Protein backbone atom coordinates (compact mmCIF):
# COMPACT_ATOMS: atom_id res chain seq x y z
CA UNK A 1 0.00 0.00 0.00
CA UNK A 2 2.72 2.44 0.98
CA UNK A 3 4.78 1.47 -2.07
CA UNK A 4 1.70 2.07 -4.22
CA UNK A 5 1.21 5.58 -2.78
CA UNK A 6 4.94 6.34 -3.05
CA UNK A 7 5.13 5.25 -6.69
CA UNK A 8 1.94 7.13 -7.45
CA UNK A 9 3.25 10.35 -5.91
CA UNK A 10 6.63 9.90 -7.61
CA UNK A 11 4.97 9.49 -11.01
CA UNK A 12 2.77 12.47 -10.36
CA UNK A 13 5.68 14.66 -9.20
CA UNK A 14 7.80 13.79 -12.24
CA UNK A 15 4.93 14.35 -14.68
CA UNK A 16 3.99 17.56 -12.90
CA UNK A 17 7.61 18.78 -13.08
CA UNK A 18 7.73 18.18 -16.83
CA UNK A 19 4.42 20.00 -17.27
CA UNK A 20 5.63 22.83 -15.04
CA UNK A 21 8.81 23.28 -17.06
CA UNK A 22 6.66 23.51 -20.18
CA UNK A 23 4.29 25.94 -18.43
CA UNK A 24 7.20 28.05 -17.21
CA UNK A 25 8.51 28.37 -20.76
CA UNK A 26 5.09 29.27 -22.11
CA UNK A 27 4.37 31.78 -19.32
CA UNK A 28 7.73 33.47 -19.82
CA UNK A 29 7.17 33.50 -23.57
CA UNK A 30 3.74 35.11 -23.35
CA UNK A 31 4.94 37.69 -20.83
CA UNK A 32 7.71 38.63 -23.24
CA UNK A 33 5.41 38.57 -26.32
CA UNK A 34 7.04 35.41 -27.69
CA UNK A 35 5.40 32.07 -28.51
CA UNK A 36 7.68 29.66 -26.63
CA UNK A 37 8.24 26.07 -27.74
CA UNK A 38 6.08 25.33 -30.77
CA UNK A 39 7.81 22.63 -32.84
CA UNK A 40 7.66 19.46 -30.69
CA UNK A 41 4.11 18.21 -30.93
CA UNK A 42 1.02 20.40 -31.06
CA UNK A 43 1.90 23.78 -29.49
CA UNK A 44 5.20 22.21 -28.37
CA UNK A 45 3.42 20.04 -25.79
CA UNK A 46 6.03 17.27 -26.01
CA UNK A 47 8.97 19.67 -25.52
CA UNK A 48 9.67 18.64 -21.90
CA UNK A 49 9.55 14.94 -22.79
CA UNK A 50 11.96 15.53 -25.65
CA UNK A 51 14.24 17.46 -23.30
CA UNK A 52 14.26 14.77 -20.63
CA UNK A 53 14.86 12.11 -23.29
CA UNK A 54 17.83 14.11 -24.52
CA UNK A 55 19.17 14.48 -20.97
CA UNK A 56 18.79 10.71 -20.42
CA UNK A 57 20.84 9.93 -23.51
CA UNK A 58 23.67 12.29 -22.65
CA UNK A 59 26.97 11.06 -21.29
CA UNK A 60 27.30 11.55 -17.53
CA UNK A 61 30.54 13.45 -17.23
CA UNK A 62 32.23 13.69 -13.83
CA UNK A 63 34.92 16.39 -13.78
CA UNK A 64 38.40 15.04 -13.04
CA UNK A 65 38.87 17.31 -10.02
CA UNK A 66 35.41 16.62 -8.59
CA UNK A 67 34.72 14.63 -5.45
CA UNK A 68 33.16 11.64 -7.21
CA UNK A 69 31.11 10.13 -4.39
CA UNK A 70 29.56 13.48 -3.39
CA UNK A 71 29.10 14.46 -7.01
CA UNK A 72 26.95 11.39 -7.66
CA UNK A 73 25.13 11.53 -4.32
CA UNK A 74 24.16 15.23 -4.29
CA UNK A 75 21.35 15.27 -6.92
CA UNK A 76 19.81 12.21 -5.27
CA UNK A 77 19.80 13.93 -1.86
CA UNK A 78 18.21 17.06 -3.33
CA UNK A 79 15.44 15.14 -5.05
CA UNK A 80 14.80 12.75 -2.17
CA UNK A 81 14.64 15.59 0.37
CA UNK A 82 11.94 17.27 -1.68
CA UNK A 83 10.14 14.03 -2.47
CA UNK A 84 9.86 12.75 1.10
CA UNK A 85 8.19 16.05 1.97
CA UNK A 86 5.18 14.85 -0.02
CA UNK A 87 4.81 11.85 2.31
CA UNK A 88 2.76 13.69 4.92
CA UNK A 89 0.75 15.94 2.65
CA UNK A 90 -3.01 15.41 3.10
CA UNK A 91 -4.16 14.86 -0.46
CA UNK A 92 -7.84 14.91 0.34
CA UNK A 93 -10.15 14.22 3.28
CA UNK A 94 -8.81 11.05 4.92
CA UNK A 95 -6.11 10.33 2.31
CA UNK A 96 -2.54 10.94 3.46
CA UNK A 97 0.72 9.11 2.84
CA UNK A 98 1.95 9.19 6.42
CA UNK A 99 -0.56 10.65 8.85
CA UNK A 100 1.89 11.74 11.51
CA UNK A 101 0.63 14.13 14.17
CA UNK A 102 3.66 16.44 13.85
CA UNK A 103 3.16 16.85 10.09
CA UNK A 104 3.95 20.58 9.95
CA UNK A 105 7.16 20.11 11.89
CA UNK A 106 8.18 17.19 9.67
CA UNK A 107 7.55 18.98 6.39
CA UNK A 108 9.29 22.21 7.43
CA UNK A 109 12.28 20.17 8.64
CA UNK A 110 12.48 18.06 5.51
CA UNK A 111 12.38 21.04 3.15
CA UNK A 112 15.54 22.38 4.73
CA UNK A 113 17.48 19.15 4.06
CA UNK A 114 17.75 20.39 0.49
CA UNK A 115 20.41 22.80 1.77
CA UNK A 116 22.73 19.86 2.42
CA UNK A 117 22.25 18.60 -1.12
CA UNK A 118 22.91 22.00 -2.64
CA UNK A 119 26.04 22.53 -0.57
CA UNK A 120 27.25 19.05 -1.57
CA UNK A 121 26.52 19.87 -5.20
CA UNK A 122 28.65 23.01 -5.10
CA UNK A 123 31.44 21.53 -3.00
CA UNK A 124 31.72 18.32 -5.05
CA UNK A 125 31.89 20.22 -8.33
CA UNK A 126 35.20 21.79 -7.24
CA UNK A 127 34.26 24.88 -9.21
CA UNK A 128 34.39 28.39 -7.77
CA UNK A 129 31.11 29.48 -9.37
CA UNK A 130 29.33 26.35 -8.18
CA UNK A 131 30.68 26.76 -4.66
CA UNK A 132 29.76 30.45 -4.59
CA UNK A 133 26.26 29.55 -5.75
CA UNK A 134 25.77 26.92 -3.10
CA UNK A 135 27.18 29.13 -0.35
CA UNK A 136 24.70 31.81 -1.34
CA UNK A 137 21.94 29.23 -1.44
CA UNK A 138 22.73 27.97 2.05
CA UNK A 139 22.91 31.50 3.48
CA UNK A 140 19.61 32.33 1.81
CA UNK A 141 17.71 29.20 2.79
CA UNK A 142 18.92 29.33 6.39
CA UNK A 143 17.92 33.01 6.64
CA UNK A 144 14.53 32.62 5.04
CA UNK A 145 13.59 29.44 6.91
CA UNK A 146 13.22 31.57 10.04
CA UNK A 147 10.42 33.90 8.84
CA UNK A 148 8.78 30.95 7.05
CA UNK A 149 8.91 28.88 10.21
CA UNK A 150 7.62 31.67 12.43
CA UNK A 151 4.79 32.42 9.99
CA UNK A 152 3.89 28.74 10.05
CA UNK A 153 3.93 28.72 13.86
CA UNK A 154 1.47 31.61 13.95
CA UNK A 155 -0.93 29.42 11.91
CA UNK A 156 -0.31 26.45 14.16
CA UNK A 157 -1.20 28.59 17.18
CA UNK A 158 -4.54 29.52 15.64
CA UNK A 159 -5.28 25.96 14.50
CA UNK A 160 -4.05 24.41 17.71
CA UNK A 161 -2.60 21.36 15.99
CA UNK A 162 0.56 20.21 14.22
CA UNK A 163 -1.34 17.56 12.27
CA UNK A 164 -1.77 18.73 8.67
CA UNK A 165 -4.99 16.75 8.30
CA UNK A 166 -6.50 18.49 11.36
CA UNK A 167 -5.34 21.90 10.13
CA UNK A 168 -6.98 21.12 6.76
CA UNK A 169 -10.25 19.97 8.26
CA UNK A 170 -10.46 23.04 10.50
CA UNK A 171 -10.79 25.30 7.45
CA UNK A 172 -14.05 23.97 6.05
CA UNK A 173 -17.40 22.35 6.65
CA UNK A 174 -15.79 19.25 8.21
CA UNK A 175 -14.44 21.28 11.09
CA UNK A 176 -14.69 19.65 14.51
CA UNK A 177 -14.64 23.03 16.23
CA UNK A 178 -16.57 26.21 15.59
CA UNK A 179 -14.91 28.49 13.02
CA UNK A 180 -15.33 32.25 13.15
CA UNK A 181 -14.79 34.58 10.22
CA UNK A 182 -12.52 37.38 11.52
CA UNK A 183 -13.23 35.98 14.98
CA UNK A 184 -16.90 37.02 15.10
CA UNK A 185 -19.17 35.41 12.52
CA UNK A 186 -19.73 31.65 12.93
CA UNK A 187 -19.07 30.10 9.50
CA UNK A 188 -18.76 26.45 10.59
CA UNK A 189 -21.65 25.38 8.35
CA UNK A 190 -21.12 27.97 5.63
CA UNK A 191 -17.56 26.94 4.80
CA UNK A 192 -16.08 28.04 1.50
CA UNK A 193 -13.35 30.64 1.35
CA UNK A 194 -14.81 32.36 4.42
CA UNK A 195 -13.48 29.54 6.59
CA UNK A 196 -9.91 29.66 5.28
CA UNK A 197 -7.22 30.45 7.80
CA UNK A 198 -6.33 33.78 6.17
CA UNK A 199 -9.92 34.92 6.75
CA UNK A 200 -10.34 33.35 10.18
CA UNK A 201 -7.69 35.71 11.50
CA UNK A 202 -6.77 38.68 9.32
CA UNK A 203 -3.14 38.87 10.44
CA UNK A 204 -2.62 35.44 8.84
CA UNK A 205 -2.90 37.18 5.47
CA UNK A 206 0.32 38.95 6.40
CA UNK A 207 1.74 35.63 7.59
CA UNK A 208 0.75 34.10 4.25
CA UNK A 209 2.58 36.84 2.34
CA UNK A 210 5.65 36.38 4.54
CA UNK A 211 5.55 32.61 4.04
CA UNK A 212 5.08 33.00 0.28
CA UNK A 213 8.04 35.39 -0.07
CA UNK A 214 10.21 33.14 2.10
CA UNK A 215 9.15 30.09 0.10
CA UNK A 216 10.30 31.84 -3.09
CA UNK A 217 13.71 32.17 -1.46
CA UNK A 218 13.69 28.55 -0.32
CA UNK A 219 12.99 27.35 -3.87
CA UNK A 220 15.78 29.60 -5.21
CA UNK A 221 13.22 31.27 -7.44
CA UNK A 222 13.49 34.80 -8.80
CA UNK A 223 13.74 37.43 -7.39
CA UNK A 224 15.81 35.34 -4.96
CA UNK A 225 17.60 33.24 -7.58
CA UNK A 226 21.07 34.33 -6.46
CA UNK A 227 22.38 30.73 -6.25
CA UNK A 228 21.88 30.22 -9.98
CA UNK A 229 22.31 33.81 -11.12
CA UNK A 230 23.09 33.13 -14.75
CA UNK A 231 24.58 36.53 -15.41
CA UNK A 232 27.09 36.38 -12.54
CA UNK A 233 27.72 32.69 -11.75
CA UNK A 234 27.46 31.08 -15.20
CA UNK A 235 24.81 28.58 -14.06
CA UNK A 236 25.20 28.65 -10.31
CA UNK A 237 25.53 25.55 -8.17
CA UNK A 238 24.74 23.08 -10.97
CA UNK A 239 27.24 24.50 -13.46
CA UNK A 240 29.33 21.31 -13.62
CA UNK A 241 26.33 19.04 -14.05
CA UNK A 242 25.01 17.64 -17.29
CA UNK A 243 22.80 14.87 -18.50
CA UNK A 244 20.26 13.25 -16.23
CA UNK A 245 21.97 14.45 -13.04
CA UNK A 246 21.21 18.00 -14.12
CA UNK A 247 17.72 16.82 -15.05
CA UNK A 248 17.16 15.52 -11.52
CA UNK A 249 18.28 18.84 -10.00
CA UNK A 250 15.88 20.62 -12.34
CA UNK A 251 12.99 18.28 -11.49
CA UNK A 252 13.72 18.79 -7.79
CA UNK A 253 13.50 22.56 -8.23
CA UNK A 254 10.03 22.30 -9.73
CA UNK A 255 8.94 19.61 -7.24
CA UNK A 256 10.06 22.01 -4.50
CA UNK A 257 7.83 24.71 -5.98
CA UNK A 258 4.90 22.32 -5.79
CA UNK A 259 5.73 21.29 -2.22
CA UNK A 260 5.97 24.82 -0.82
CA UNK A 261 2.83 25.83 -2.72
CA UNK A 262 0.90 22.85 -1.37
CA UNK A 263 2.05 23.68 2.16
CA UNK A 264 0.98 27.30 1.68
CA UNK A 265 -2.41 26.09 0.46
CA UNK A 266 -2.82 23.70 3.40
CA UNK A 267 -1.79 26.21 6.04
CA UNK A 268 -3.44 29.36 4.70
CA UNK A 269 -5.81 28.77 1.79
CA UNK A 270 -8.11 26.08 3.07
CA UNK A 271 -6.23 22.95 1.96
CA UNK A 272 -8.59 20.58 0.11
CA UNK A 273 -11.68 22.59 1.05
CA UNK A 274 -13.80 24.15 -1.62
CA UNK A 275 -13.70 27.94 -2.05
CA UNK A 276 -17.50 28.12 -2.54
CA UNK A 277 -19.58 28.84 0.58
CA UNK A 278 -23.07 27.56 1.37
CA UNK A 279 -25.53 30.37 0.63
CA UNK A 280 -28.98 29.55 1.94
CA UNK A 281 -30.47 26.81 -0.24
CA UNK A 282 -27.49 26.88 -2.61
CA UNK A 283 -25.22 24.55 -0.67
CA UNK A 284 -22.28 25.12 -3.00
CA UNK A 285 -19.81 23.94 -0.39
CA UNK A 286 -21.58 20.59 0.07
CA UNK A 287 -21.94 20.12 -3.69
CA UNK A 288 -18.26 20.70 -4.37
CA UNK A 289 -16.88 18.58 -1.56
CA UNK A 290 -15.74 14.99 -1.92
CA UNK A 291 -12.71 12.80 -2.39
CA UNK A 292 -11.91 13.88 -5.93
CA UNK A 293 -13.10 17.42 -5.39
CA UNK A 294 -10.56 17.55 -2.55
CA UNK A 295 -7.69 16.49 -4.81
CA UNK A 296 -8.90 18.94 -7.44
CA UNK A 297 -9.13 21.93 -5.08
CA UNK A 298 -5.76 21.22 -3.48
CA UNK A 299 -4.00 20.98 -6.84
CA UNK A 300 -5.91 23.88 -8.37
CA UNK A 301 -4.92 26.22 -5.54
CA UNK A 302 -1.32 24.94 -5.58
CA UNK A 303 -1.05 25.41 -9.35
CA UNK A 304 -2.43 28.92 -9.00
CA UNK A 305 0.33 29.72 -6.48
CA UNK A 306 2.90 28.17 -8.83
CA UNK A 307 1.60 30.41 -11.60
CA UNK A 308 2.09 33.41 -9.29
CA UNK A 309 5.65 32.23 -8.62
CA UNK A 310 6.33 32.09 -12.37
CA UNK A 311 4.64 35.43 -12.91
CA UNK A 312 6.85 37.02 -10.23
CA UNK A 313 9.95 35.36 -11.68
CA UNK A 314 9.42 36.96 -15.08
CA UNK A 315 8.57 40.36 -13.63
CA UNK A 316 10.93 41.26 -10.81
CA UNK A 317 14.70 41.68 -11.13
CA UNK A 318 17.13 39.77 -8.93
CA UNK A 319 18.08 41.00 -5.45
CA UNK A 320 21.65 41.83 -4.54
CA UNK A 321 23.17 39.65 -1.79
CA UNK A 322 23.14 42.41 0.83
CA UNK A 323 19.59 43.47 -0.13
CA UNK A 324 18.50 39.85 0.18
CA UNK A 325 19.93 39.53 3.67
CA UNK A 326 18.66 42.95 4.76
CA UNK A 327 15.16 42.12 3.53
CA UNK A 328 15.14 38.74 5.21
CA UNK A 329 16.50 39.79 8.59
CA UNK A 330 15.25 43.38 8.91
CA UNK A 331 11.81 43.13 7.33
CA UNK A 332 10.49 39.58 7.16
CA UNK A 333 11.66 38.29 10.55
CA UNK A 334 10.28 41.23 12.61
CA UNK A 335 6.98 41.04 10.70
CA UNK A 336 6.84 37.27 11.24
CA UNK A 337 7.36 37.73 14.99
CA UNK A 338 4.69 40.44 14.96
CA UNK A 339 2.31 37.86 13.43
CA UNK A 340 3.34 35.38 16.09
CA UNK A 341 2.51 37.85 18.88
CA UNK A 342 -0.82 38.80 17.30
CA UNK A 343 -1.62 35.09 16.98
CA UNK A 344 -1.04 34.63 20.69
CA UNK A 345 -3.22 37.61 21.59
CA UNK A 346 -5.87 36.51 19.08
CA UNK A 347 -5.98 33.01 20.56
CA UNK A 348 -6.25 34.32 24.12
CA UNK A 349 -8.56 37.27 23.63
CA UNK A 350 -10.79 36.67 20.61
CA UNK A 351 -10.95 32.88 20.23
CA UNK A 352 -11.85 32.32 23.87
Amino acid at each position, binding site marked *: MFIFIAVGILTFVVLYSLAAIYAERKVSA*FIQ*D*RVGPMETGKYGLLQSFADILKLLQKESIIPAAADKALFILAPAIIFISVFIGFASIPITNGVIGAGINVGVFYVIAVITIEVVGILMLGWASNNKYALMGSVRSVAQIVSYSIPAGVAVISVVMISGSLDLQVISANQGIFSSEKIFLLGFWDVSNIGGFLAWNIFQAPHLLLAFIIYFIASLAECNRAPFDLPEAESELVGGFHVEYGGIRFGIVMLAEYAMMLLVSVIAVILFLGAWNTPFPNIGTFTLANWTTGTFWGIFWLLAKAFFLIFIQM*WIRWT*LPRFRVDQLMAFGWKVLIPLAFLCLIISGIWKLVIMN
Partner: protein
Amino acid sequence: MKKGIIHTINSILEGLSTTLKHFFAGKKYRNANGGVAKSNYFENHEGLVTIQYPKQKIPVPEVGRYQLHVEMDDCIVCDLCAKICPVDCIAIDSIKATEDIGITSDGTKKRLHATKFEIDMAKCMYCGLCTVVCPTECIIMTNEYDRSVPHVAQLNYVFAEMPPEEIEAKRIALLQFEEEKRKAKGL
Protein backbone atom coordinates in the same frame (compact mmCIF):
# COMPACT_ATOMS: atom_id res chain seq x y z
CA MET B 1 10.68 55.20 5.30
CA LYS B 2 6.90 54.87 5.07
CA LYS B 3 6.89 56.62 1.68
CA GLY B 4 9.61 54.24 0.50
CA ILE B 5 7.56 51.16 1.42
CA ILE B 6 4.48 52.45 -0.38
CA HIS B 7 6.54 53.41 -3.42
CA THR B 8 8.15 49.95 -3.52
CA ILE B 9 4.84 48.13 -3.24
CA ASN B 10 3.29 50.34 -5.91
CA SER B 11 6.13 49.80 -8.32
CA ILE B 12 6.03 46.02 -7.78
CA LEU B 13 2.28 45.97 -8.42
CA GLU B 14 2.70 48.12 -11.51
CA GLY B 15 5.33 45.72 -12.88
CA LEU B 16 3.16 42.72 -12.13
CA SER B 17 0.13 44.25 -13.84
CA THR B 18 2.19 45.09 -16.92
CA THR B 19 3.47 41.53 -17.26
CA LEU B 20 0.00 40.10 -16.62
CA LYS B 21 -1.41 42.30 -19.37
CA HIS B 22 1.19 40.94 -21.75
CA PHE B 23 0.49 37.39 -20.57
CA PHE B 24 -3.19 37.62 -21.46
CA ALA B 25 -2.41 39.40 -24.72
CA GLY B 26 -0.57 36.20 -25.69
CA LYS B 27 -3.83 34.79 -27.03
CA LYS B 28 -3.43 36.64 -30.33
CA TYR B 29 -0.74 37.53 -32.77
CA ARG B 30 0.34 41.06 -33.42
CA ASN B 31 -0.55 41.53 -37.04
CA ALA B 32 2.73 42.60 -38.61
CA ASN B 33 1.71 41.72 -42.15
CA GLY B 34 1.93 44.75 -44.33
CA GLY B 35 4.70 46.16 -42.16
CA VAL B 36 5.12 49.85 -41.51
CA ALA B 37 3.18 50.71 -44.66
CA LYS B 38 -0.05 49.76 -42.92
CA SER B 39 -1.97 52.71 -41.52
CA ASN B 40 -2.54 51.11 -38.09
CA TYR B 41 1.04 49.90 -37.71
CA PHE B 42 1.79 52.04 -34.66
CA GLU B 43 -1.41 51.00 -32.92
CA ASN B 44 -0.17 47.40 -32.69
CA HIS B 45 1.04 47.29 -29.10
CA GLU B 46 -0.39 43.97 -28.00
CA GLY B 47 -0.03 40.33 -28.89
CA LEU B 48 2.78 38.02 -29.85
CA VAL B 49 5.50 39.38 -32.09
CA THR B 50 7.24 36.14 -33.06
CA ILE B 51 7.16 35.26 -36.73
CA GLN B 52 7.53 31.48 -36.99
CA TYR B 53 9.89 31.88 -39.85
CA PRO B 54 9.71 29.01 -42.29
CA LYS B 55 5.95 28.81 -41.83
CA GLN B 56 5.22 32.53 -41.63
CA LYS B 57 7.08 35.23 -43.44
CA ILE B 58 6.99 39.00 -43.45
CA PRO B 59 6.26 39.99 -47.04
CA VAL B 60 9.24 41.50 -48.84
CA PRO B 61 8.93 44.06 -51.65
CA GLU B 62 8.50 42.62 -55.12
CA VAL B 63 11.48 44.74 -56.16
CA GLY B 64 13.59 43.57 -53.23
CA ARG B 65 17.31 43.72 -53.74
CA TYR B 66 18.47 40.36 -52.48
CA GLN B 67 19.98 37.49 -54.50
CA LEU B 68 21.37 38.06 -57.98
CA HIS B 69 19.93 36.53 -61.07
CA VAL B 70 21.29 36.63 -64.63
CA GLU B 71 19.09 36.34 -67.70
CA MET B 72 21.68 34.70 -69.95
CA ASP B 73 19.67 35.23 -73.15
CA ASP B 74 20.12 38.99 -72.67
CA CYS B 75 23.79 38.87 -71.63
CA ILE B 76 26.35 40.18 -74.08
CA VAL B 77 29.25 38.94 -71.87
CA CYS B 78 30.71 42.44 -71.68
CA ASP B 79 32.40 41.60 -68.30
CA LEU B 80 31.46 45.01 -66.82
CA CYS B 81 29.75 43.46 -63.83
CA ALA B 82 32.81 41.35 -63.00
CA LYS B 83 35.03 44.42 -63.30
CA ILE B 84 32.97 46.64 -61.00
CA CYS B 85 32.35 43.98 -58.37
CA PRO B 86 34.11 45.16 -55.17
CA VAL B 87 34.50 41.64 -53.83
CA ASP B 88 35.19 39.85 -57.12
CA CYS B 89 32.41 37.39 -56.74
CA ILE B 90 31.53 37.24 -60.45
CA ALA B 91 33.69 35.06 -62.70
CA ILE B 92 33.24 35.41 -66.46
CA ASP B 93 35.11 33.76 -69.36
CA SER B 94 34.23 34.46 -72.94
CA ILE B 95 35.20 33.47 -76.44
CA LYS B 96 34.52 35.40 -79.58
CA ALA B 97 31.80 34.08 -81.80
CA THR B 98 32.46 33.42 -85.44
CA GLU B 99 28.86 33.04 -86.52
CA ASP B 100 25.76 35.09 -85.78
CA ILE B 101 24.48 34.23 -82.28
CA GLY B 102 21.46 36.46 -82.22
CA ILE B 103 20.43 39.65 -80.45
CA THR B 104 19.25 40.44 -76.92
CA SER B 105 15.70 41.47 -76.13
CA ASP B 106 16.65 45.16 -76.35
CA GLY B 107 18.27 44.68 -79.76
CA THR B 108 21.94 44.61 -78.85
CA LYS B 109 23.94 42.22 -81.01
CA LYS B 110 25.64 39.38 -79.16
CA ARG B 111 29.23 38.79 -80.24
CA LEU B 112 30.69 36.66 -77.46
CA HIS B 113 30.00 33.17 -76.20
CA ALA B 114 29.87 32.94 -72.41
CA THR B 115 32.03 29.93 -71.62
CA LYS B 116 31.72 30.60 -67.90
CA PHE B 117 29.40 32.84 -65.87
CA GLU B 118 29.41 32.15 -62.16
CA ILE B 119 28.39 34.29 -59.19
CA ASP B 120 29.61 33.24 -55.76
CA MET B 121 26.76 34.39 -53.50
CA ALA B 122 28.85 33.48 -50.46
CA LYS B 123 31.14 36.38 -51.37
CA CYS B 124 28.48 38.77 -52.65
CA MET B 125 27.87 41.83 -50.46
CA TYR B 126 24.61 42.80 -52.14
CA CYS B 127 25.84 46.28 -53.15
CA GLY B 128 24.03 46.10 -56.46
CA LEU B 129 26.78 47.81 -58.47
CA CYS B 130 26.71 45.02 -61.11
CA THR B 131 23.04 45.68 -61.82
CA VAL B 132 23.80 49.38 -62.31
CA VAL B 133 26.55 48.96 -64.87
CA CYS B 134 24.93 46.19 -66.91
CA PRO B 135 24.21 47.70 -70.38
CA THR B 136 21.46 45.22 -71.22
CA GLU B 137 20.00 44.98 -67.70
CA CYS B 138 20.36 41.23 -67.74
CA ILE B 139 21.82 40.97 -64.21
CA ILE B 140 19.19 41.84 -61.63
CA MET B 141 18.52 41.49 -57.94
CA THR B 142 15.48 39.40 -57.05
CA ASN B 143 13.24 39.33 -53.98
CA GLU B 144 14.55 35.90 -52.98
CA TYR B 145 16.49 36.23 -49.73
CA ASP B 146 16.44 32.90 -47.93
CA ARG B 147 17.93 30.26 -50.18
CA SER B 148 19.98 27.97 -47.96
CA VAL B 149 22.30 25.20 -49.11
CA PRO B 150 23.94 22.31 -47.29
CA HIS B 151 27.42 23.12 -48.61
CA VAL B 152 29.05 26.49 -49.17
CA ALA B 153 30.22 25.49 -52.66
CA GLN B 154 26.59 25.33 -53.69
CA LEU B 155 26.27 29.07 -53.14
CA ASN B 156 28.39 29.49 -56.27
CA TYR B 157 25.58 29.94 -58.75
CA VAL B 158 26.43 28.81 -62.27
CA PHE B 159 24.50 30.70 -64.92
CA ALA B 160 26.45 29.58 -68.01
CA GLU B 161 28.81 26.72 -68.49
CA MET B 162 30.21 25.42 -71.75
CA PRO B 163 31.63 21.89 -71.93
CA PRO B 164 35.43 21.82 -72.64
CA GLU B 165 35.03 20.06 -75.99
CA GLU B 166 32.70 22.75 -77.19
CA ILE B 167 35.09 25.46 -75.99
CA GLU B 168 37.89 23.72 -77.88
CA ALA B 169 35.72 23.52 -81.01
CA LYS B 170 34.83 27.21 -80.69
CA ARG B 171 38.50 28.08 -80.20
CA ILE B 172 39.55 26.16 -83.33
CA ALA B 173 36.71 27.77 -85.27
CA LEU B 174 37.86 31.20 -84.12
CA LEU B 175 41.49 30.46 -85.12
CA GLN B 176 40.37 29.30 -88.56
CA PHE B 177 38.21 32.36 -88.93
CA GLU B 178 41.04 34.68 -88.03
CA GLU B 179 43.40 32.79 -90.38
CA GLU B 180 40.93 33.22 -93.22
CA LYS B 181 40.54 36.91 -92.42
CA ARG B 182 44.32 37.37 -92.49
CA LYS B 183 44.54 35.58 -95.82
CA ALA B 184 41.72 37.67 -97.21
CA LYS B 185 43.63 40.80 -96.22
CA GLY B 186 46.61 39.35 -98.02
CA LEU B 187 48.94 39.33 -95.05
